[in-house]
């Protein structure tokens, strides 16, 4: 029957093996990452601080993926995803702090809250395009920290001081530190969410999303309900970023309005473009970029200032700015795209050599 064979005529099981084989490196990488707390814990190679850094990279990858679903795949520009990140973080923190929910139960709640907020924001956003949407989301990013500081909500949000929560320790008395345990939690959540995103994008709905990005009018003539897709993907995108925010709150043990200033939204956007727009590996690279760039920019600035005797000090942010412009020049499709092209070039060359020899 048609059900047992795929489009290209191969039996479905064969195709699964093929996919599994082609992405073997991905599985190896995931297993290695999953084993990190055991290896790192036993050998002491990776400190708790190291695990915290790794967890935050994973968290930002999820957030960048959320932005990429909206901006990269659906073409709606958002300069305000830090707002959804903040909503997710505060949902988790409030549930833990006021109603002592277990940390894992806050993630679905943060997801629901952010989906609703994102969906509702997506309704007026339907009327706005391009730069106008950028301004509206920008305003959202400005507004959310203000709302969190708002006088009448202080009992709930803790006002300017924010909320302190304690990081959960590993369950069942497992011999792992809470940083190691949270690394695992973040990894599992991230893998699940990337897998879901991949399935969404490979589906009929995913193709509808990219069709809307490429030409909304043409998409609507093909029978795609543009308004519904655009609002729902706004919700889903907010959901992803919100879950990332909730994880961030739990891992960081602290939320405050000033952690979610406008810079966060800009960082997510930069991470998405630099990592690679409309690409799942790009989101991972983007997340790593968001977490690490400041430290590297600082180190580079120090070494430049140390080696050259300039009349003025080079500041880290100058290095950051130059790095951004340089990356856009050198890798127009993002770091992920640039690496893929490099890889393709190398393999093609080696394939050419084997043919000629």
């Amino acid at each position, binding site marked *: 029957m048609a059900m047992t064979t795929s489009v290209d005529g191969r039996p479905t099981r064969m195709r699964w093996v093929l996919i599994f084989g082609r992405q073997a490196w991905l599985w190896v990488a995931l297993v290695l990452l999953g084993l990190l707390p055991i290896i790192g814990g036993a050998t002491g190679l990776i400190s708790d601080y190291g695990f915290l850094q790794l967890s935050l990279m994973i968290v930002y990858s999820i957030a960048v993926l959320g932005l990429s679903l909206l901006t990269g795949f659906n073409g709606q520009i958002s300069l305000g995803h830090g707002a959804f990140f903040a909503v997710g973080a505060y949902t988790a923190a409030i549930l833990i702090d006021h109603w002592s929910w277990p940390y894992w139960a806050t993630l679905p709640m943060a997801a629901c809250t952010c989906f609703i907020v994102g969906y509702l924001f997506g309704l007026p956003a339907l009327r*706005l*395009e*391009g730069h106008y949407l950028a*301004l509206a989301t920008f305003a959202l990013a400005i507004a959310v920290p*203000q709302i969190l500081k708002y006088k009448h909500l202080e009992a709930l949000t803790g006002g300017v001081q924010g909320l302190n929560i304690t990081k959960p320790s590993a369950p069942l008395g497992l011999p792992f530190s809470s940083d190691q345990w949270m690394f695992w939690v973040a990894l599992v959540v991230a893998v699940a969410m990337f897998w879901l995103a991949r399935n969404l994008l490979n589906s009929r709905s995913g193709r509808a999303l990219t069709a809307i990005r490429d030409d909304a009018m043409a998409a609507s003539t093909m029978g795609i309900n543009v308004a519904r897709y655009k609002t729902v993907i706004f919700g889903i995108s907010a959901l992803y970023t919100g879950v990332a925010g909730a994880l961030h709150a739990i891992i960081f043990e602290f939320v405050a309005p000033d952690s979610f200033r406008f810079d966060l939204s800009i960082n997510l956007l930069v991470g998405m473009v630099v990592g690679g727009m409309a690409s799942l590996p790009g989101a991972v690279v983007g997340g790593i970029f968001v977490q690490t760039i400041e430290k590297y920019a600082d180190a580079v600035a120090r070494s430049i200032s140390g080696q050259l005797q300039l009349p003025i000090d080079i500041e880290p*942010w100058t290095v950051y700015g130059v790095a951004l*412009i340089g990356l856009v020049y050198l890798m127009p499709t993002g770091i992920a795209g640039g690496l893929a092209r490099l890889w393709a070039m190398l393999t093609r060359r080696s394939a050419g050599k084997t043919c000629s020899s």
Partner: protein
Amino acid sequence: MEQLIQQIASGLANGAVYASLALALVMIFVSTHHINFAQGEMAMFSAYMVWQLLQWEAPFWIALPTVALVSFVIGVAVERAILRPLRHAPVLSIVVVFIGLLTIFHSMAGAIWGHTIKDFPSPFPNMSFVGSGYIGPHQIGMIAVTMLLLLGLFAFFRLTPLGLAMRASAQNPASARLAGIRVDWMLALGWGLAAALGAVAGTLVAPVVFLEPNMMSGILLYGFAAALVGGIDNPGGAVAGGFIVGVLENLAGYFGNLMEKATGVYIVGNGEKLMVALVIVIAVLTLKPSGLFGRATARRV
């Protein structure tokens, strides 16, 4: 009542600064269809240059034109060197380049002149006149300079061949090129003009907010909102938008305080006035997506 007039007057004065920054944004948007997020930081950098010249005891009315000229050259150079090679890049890549430029200008200003807040003298004489209870001389000066800039730009675009060439290359680059206009240079010229306008805006606002690397971050947002409210492709609309946003912002704070006094319930105060202004702006845009004075454009598919 007196307080209300005062609030509106100072809103108009702030609006003048938003308007001149919005003019700069419109200038770049009309010629290249980009929103220059680095505009505010470039203006801040120019304001620092004016301050430096003043420190070297140059008279103000020589320092400002000199810096406007230097900013013009910087603007042209940025367009030619950084943005020209990226003219086929996707919009978001350009946005990231602008963010890069923003951080470079920001941190360079910090590195050269330090992060401490500096006093910036007002160029306008401190004198009393009719109505000076409501509005200060610097505020009047800000409004006057903005109106002069608008008139000057209007004259430039309507009455000079160069202005006509710039409008032509913005409207239809291909035809303009066929008519012998060097479209590439017109774009660079647009950037230069925007940078010069920004220099004036930065210098005008520096005495109000004091000179420091962060001084423009909020103002750029207002300028952006002003440009969009007025219609991003319309210089006159941008100026009107600037005044509207400036007044709205002050009124939000004023009525918030009034309501608190009357009812005893805190609803909005000065902390939230930025937010209130933005919400109003977005409400306007949702009802009129191409801005108050912008034209809705039809598109061929």
